[in-house]
């Protein structure tokens, strides 16, 4: 399946891009994050990441669909 993945903050810096399209056999977000983490050597563990799918916060149990837009959100620091 193909996913659009959005990166922010330290993940964007580590990945060197704000967006990428990836192919993955997995429809599981944890597996997908693990793949991205390995590829880009992200420092942040999945337990500290919030998931968003297609512009909305999503549970990590969410089953991903082809063409989904996924965002892995590091701990926020607005305000």
């Amino acid at each position, binding site marked *: 399946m193909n996913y659009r993945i959005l990166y922010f903050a330290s993940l964007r810096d580590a990945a060197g891009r704000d967006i990428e399209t990836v192919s993955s056999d997995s429809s599981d977000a944890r597996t997908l994050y693990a793949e991205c983490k390995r590829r880009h050597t992200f420092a942040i563990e999945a*337990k500290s990441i919030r998931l968003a799918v297609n512009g909305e916060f999503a549970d990590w149990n969410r089953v991903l669909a082809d063409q989904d837009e996924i965002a892995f959100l590091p701990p926020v620091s607005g*305000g």
Partner: protein
Amino acid sequence: MMFRLAESPIDAAALSAEFANADAGACVTFEGWVRSTNAGKRVHRLDYQAYASLAANEGEKILVEAMSTFAIVQARCVHRVGALAIGDMAVWVGVSAAHRDAAFAACRFVIDEVKLRVPIWKNEHYADGQSGWLHPDNTPVDSAKT
């Protein structure tokens, strides 16, 4: 929209003026400013990065929650994104109400929830040339290895 992201400086006076209302007796505002130091490090400037569409939706949700939770008349929040210098206003929250209890409680609720829930990230650039993305408690993301 009660919540918005702003790419240019926040005009607090203009925002306050929109709150004029004959039924409101109390208005509480919170302004967050860029401080010159964090955790003992001298801050030079900072950048706020946002997941703009989700930040707008989540911010709006917080203000809707505030309106339904507290006896208030109006509530607004504006959050800066982009490059900010020391002293710049990073966020403005305003709440008007008939009475001050609700105005204080709702204003506090909004800034607390915005800091917790809205996908905005602060990258501090230090005087020593280093920089780093921060956690909600202003500790660095990198050294924590969460």
